[in-house]
């Protein structure tokens, strides 16, 4: 029996396309989202937001607001001055700005009133004395403004983090090259745009306990932040993540509005709720970083990579958020797709007076992947090679270590590439379609969960408890948060498979810090692998007791037992068995109340340099995409005809759900590559903070998508599974750009690829993106062979 799931010839539940366990409630309108919660005596909160991009606050007067009938409390920065932030080393956020605002929309005060109308009216009665400062709105502006700082805690003005690495000998790599290619690229920022806006509700009961319901992806981190800012022990705080109507990374930070309602509930003793409107969601943001990039690649004449030097410049917005991780991620995963013998990476994230950027589906990796896959397409073109063949020749080997110390276990990239090429008719179409029609290819990789937690500790990343009921039901408790990706269903499937039950027999209880063991949250595509493994371990522990009892009753050895079809039975004599419920009763009679726990912590990777914490993961997923499109030469408009996408998901827990994740990723990628832009006016105000004017595709703009699932049965994955929620976004973006070149012969080095840019390029008027001058720190050097020896499996 494998630690990662029962070794069976076939699975009974895993691999079947049953509907999700949350499906019926969602279809019937019965799911209770945060905003559906209504409580007696509930007050409504609104936040006063800064109209200035950059300003000092000299005074906030709440007197007039407090006099308004219906207003129960008003809090300002002075009431919650403790700084917080998702990353322990960059705690630079305030729930309500204390002495400075850093972007238009930065919260300054919070009101609790008997109605939203009264709360809104009260906001207009709060007098803030601002001293307006010049806003810094560009990467170049941030680097140049040495005497004009957005924050004071950071060493170099407006530089949040600058990193530099050299893996292997990059100079030697370039010397060995027959050709060297260089290019600059720009990836515009964009936002998550989930259907459900942010919402949170808090109660503070007379026993001195605080409860927060919130639409969050990370209840555990919110729990920690509330404790810190409100100065309450974690044991007196309960955080419940409500069903999340879409997150995509945007609900992964602790937020001002969560702290505000908690504080207001403590002051008023009444439930306080806040629901942000769509415009505010654009200000909360934490979306895709705008990144300027420069990439130099050395290749042999046959396309073999000899070295790569990559620079990224991230426009971080007003606060750190996850930015520390993001800057590393822009350089981490270039090495895990194709063999790269030497690699230099320099990255910097700057502060600007715009809403903070953070993690969005693919977190920091779609930008460099765009640069890299477009550059590889150009290299193949210049060398007269087929871009698919060129990549196939140098796919990373399984069970290998990359030049930057990442441990690759299984890799289905070759099969992904071959399948999309075959299904799309790549060979017949590439450079052969009529003018205006084009086909493009790209491939990519993503992590199945971050190898390290956000805060340093030796505890599990995910914990699961299960409890067996005398009636034969099983309840699973886990801190994981279903944000629509199906993580609750994953738990039900894993437990059902392990215990020979149906998913309907399993009740799933998640995302409640009082009742469920910690899971770090729904980010970094970690949940299936980590909760799945924890659930399997818990089931294994429960099963041992059940088998011990069953072995006696059935008079067969315990190692001959299996759990199938609701029974504990002999493998060799399948007619000899007893029902699950009966087995549970007998086991409870023997051992007392039945329960078990399981937990998971990812394996180490070889890299041991400072900064090696970003990139490691239990397993890498792989994707390859082919996009066919046509482009109107008069209007520059692009019509996507079809997307073929293959994804190495290790094993499809449920092919239907994986396909849903893949299609969702393709849809989101097309929005980013074709139209979405988080853009600002010269004053720093968001240009288009509405769902009408922030252009994102609808169902009508979504082309046919053919999804191909590749299974590699990863030894680290539960039943062999890897991630599927983020990786498939990555290859689509460069594949579109490459297809545009195939169609009309112009290279567009920036995202989004809009009709006006295509016309400019056709007129040879489109300027290449630029990158600023910046003095990066001396690189940290590392090469394979250094570092820690690690087993291939945790």
């Amino acid at each position, binding site marked *: 029996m494998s630690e990662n799931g029962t070794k069976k010839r076939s699975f009974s539940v895993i691999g079947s396309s049953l509907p999700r366990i949350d499906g019926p409630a969602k279809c019937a309108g019965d799911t209770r989202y945060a905003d559906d919660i209504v409580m007696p005596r509930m007050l409504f909160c609104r936040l006063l*937001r800064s*109209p*200035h991009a950059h300003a000092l606050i000299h005074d906030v007067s709440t007197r007039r607001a407090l006099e308004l009938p219906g207003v129960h409390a008003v809090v300002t920065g002075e009431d919650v001055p403790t700084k917080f932030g998702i990353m322990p080393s960059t705690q630079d956020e305030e729930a309500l700005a204390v002495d400075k605002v850093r972007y*238009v929309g930065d919260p300054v005060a919070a009101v609790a009133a008997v109605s*939203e*109308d009264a709360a*809104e009216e009260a906001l207009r009665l709060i007098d803030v004395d601002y001293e307006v400062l010049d806003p810094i709105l560009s990467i170049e502006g941030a680097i140049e403004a040495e005497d004009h700082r957005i924050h004071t805690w950071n060493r170099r003005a407006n530089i949040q983090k600058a990193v530099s690495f050299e893996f292997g000998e990059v100079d030697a790599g370039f010397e060995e090259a027959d050709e060297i290619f260089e290019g600059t690229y720009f990836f515009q920022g964009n936002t998550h745009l989930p259907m459900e*806006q942010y919402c949170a509700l808090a109660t503070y009961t007379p026993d001195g306990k605080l409860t927060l319901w919130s639409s969050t992806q990370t209840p555990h981190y919110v729990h920690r932040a509330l404790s810190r800012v409100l100065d309450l022990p974690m044991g007196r705080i309960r955080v419940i993540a409500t069903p999340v109507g879409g997150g995509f990374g945007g609900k992964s930070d602790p937020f001002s509005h969560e702290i505000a309602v908690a504080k207001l509930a403590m002051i008023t003793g009444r439930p306080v709720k806040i*629901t942000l*409107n769509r*415009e505010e969601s654009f200000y909360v943001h934490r979306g895709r970083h705008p990144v300027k990039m420069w990439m130099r690649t050395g290749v042999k004449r046959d396309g073999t990579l000899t070295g790569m030097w990559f620079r990224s410049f991230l426009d971080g917005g007003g606060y750190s958020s996850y930015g520390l991780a993001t800057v590393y991620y822009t350089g981490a995963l270039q090495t895990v797709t194709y063999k790269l013998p030497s690699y230099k990476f320099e990255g910097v994230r700057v502060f600007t007076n715009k809403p903070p950027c953070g993690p969005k589906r693919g977190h920091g990796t779609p930008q460099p992947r765009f640069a890299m896959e477009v550059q590889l397409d150009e290299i193949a073109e210049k060398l007269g090679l087929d871009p698919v063949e060129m990549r196939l020749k140098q796919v990373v080997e399984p069970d290998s270590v990359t030049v930057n110390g990442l441990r690759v276990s299984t890799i289905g990239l070759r099969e992904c590439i071959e399948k999309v090429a075959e299904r799309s008719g790549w060979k017949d179409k590439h450079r052969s379609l009529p003018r205006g029609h084009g086909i493009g290819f790209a491939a990519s990789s993503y992590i199945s969960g971050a190898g390290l937690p956000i805060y340093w500790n030796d505890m599990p990343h995910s914990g699961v408890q299960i409890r067996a009921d005398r009636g034969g039901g099983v309840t699973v408790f886990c801190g994981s948060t279903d944000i629509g990706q199906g993580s609750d269903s994953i738990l039900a499937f894993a437990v059902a498979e392990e215990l020979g039950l149906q998913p309907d027999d399993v009740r799933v209880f998640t995302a409640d810090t009082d009742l469920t063991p910690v899971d770090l949250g729904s980010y970094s595509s970690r949940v299936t692998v980590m909760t799945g493994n924890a659930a399997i371990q818990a089931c294994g522990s429960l099963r041992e007791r059940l088998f011990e009892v069953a072995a006696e009753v059935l008079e067969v050895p315990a190692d001959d037992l299996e759990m199938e079809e609701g029974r504990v039975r002999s493998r060799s004599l399948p007619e000899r068995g007893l029902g699950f419920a009966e087995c549970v009763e007998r086991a409870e009679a023997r051992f007392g109340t039945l329960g078990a726990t399981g937990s998971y912590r990812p394996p180490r990777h070889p890299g041991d340099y400072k900064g090696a914490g970003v990139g490691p993961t239990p397993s890498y997923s792989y994707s390859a995409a082919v996009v066919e499109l046509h482009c109107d030469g*008069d*209007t*520059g408009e692009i019509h996507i005809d079809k997307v073929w996408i293959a994804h190495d998901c290790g094993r499809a827990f449920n092919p239907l759900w994986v396909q849903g994740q893949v299609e969702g990723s393709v849809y989101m990628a097309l929005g980013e590559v074709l*139209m979405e832009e988080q853009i600002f*006016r010269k*004053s720093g*105000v*968001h*240009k*288009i*903070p*509405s769902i*009408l*004017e922030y*252009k994102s*595709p*609808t169902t*009508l*703009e979504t082309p046919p998508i053919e999804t191909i699932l590749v299974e590699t049965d990863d030894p680290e994955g539960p039943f062999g599974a890897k991630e599927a929620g983020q990786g498939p976004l990555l290859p689509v973006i460069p594949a579109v750009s490459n297809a545009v070149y195939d169609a009309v012969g112009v290279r567009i080095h920036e995202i989004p690829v*809009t*009709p*006006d840019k295509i*016309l400019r390029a056709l007129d040879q008027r489109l300027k290449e993106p630029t990158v600023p001058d910046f003095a990066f720190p001396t690189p940290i050097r590392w090469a394979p062979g250094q570092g820690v020896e690690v087993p291939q499996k945790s």
Partner: protein
Amino acid sequence: MLRLPDFTYIRPRTLAAASSALEELGAEAMAVAGGTDVYPKMKRGQFTPRYLVSLGQVEEHRGLRREEGRGLWVGAGETLSAVAGHEVVRREFPALAAAAGLVSTLQLRNAGTIGGNLFVDTRCNYYDQSFFWRQAVGFCLKKDGDICLVAPKSRVCLAICSSDTAPVLSSLGAEAVLVSGQGSRQVPLDTLYRDDGIDYLAKRPEELLQGVWIPEASFGWRNVYLKLRRRGSFDFPVLGVAAALRMSATGTCDAAKVVLTAVASAPKVVEDAPRVLCGRPVDTASIEEAAELAMRVSHPLDNADMDYWYRKRMTRVYVTRALRQLTTAGETAGGPEAAPA
């Protein structure tokens, strides 16, 4: 969420009563039909009426019917879906079916009326924003401020005519019937628009649109509407081209009208187009000339989606395509069978 402010809702049964209510209540009252534009604008503080005079109970502005000798009556209270799906409209005036069918989304077309679309408020990226946003940027001429943020030297507001159906009905020579307490009057639809983003309608505030007549003489004209927008769903036009041609039996063009939308505060008639199109067969040369003339009078500004130079350049492309469609596809009366999109 953004809250809808309090207001008093008045439900008269006739247009005359509605008009009287508007006149009596003055600037604090607004008429509302489908409400698809009014209510969001109230939430954002762009419209701040204390009274809403609903046209929902009124019957006399409904109806879509052919009257021999008079033409096609299109009641202002008909929904955009009803207009787009009407048999005569689809057969004779595919441009109108297309324009009505391309407004926003299906749900909003089922609620929004053609009257509402003809008189829809002009749009601008500096104006179609929440109160918070406009306060942060600084208020503009059109609401609460005294400067045009698109062109600070401009004395008039430069918000854009964003109606899809207005250019089409203009190209078909439609006549509008306006009703007030003093009776009704019929005027060419064209004359109701003014190139001023604030006072964009040349009518008294209490005058209500009962409907439009597409005159008998317009039957048989080939007609088409092409719309530029980012997405094929949902979006307002950032350029619209309505073209109508009357072809003689010998194949020459007798009469022509090309009207643009979303390039000014009013629908923009390309005045010189008939000069180059009429009296000869419509061919590549005359199409190119007409398209060039259209581009010259097209003046998009940086206050809508997509770059203004791009929208200007697209004027030529879209006019060319519209005229080509009329001369190649449309041999039957009324032009192309399917509504072009």
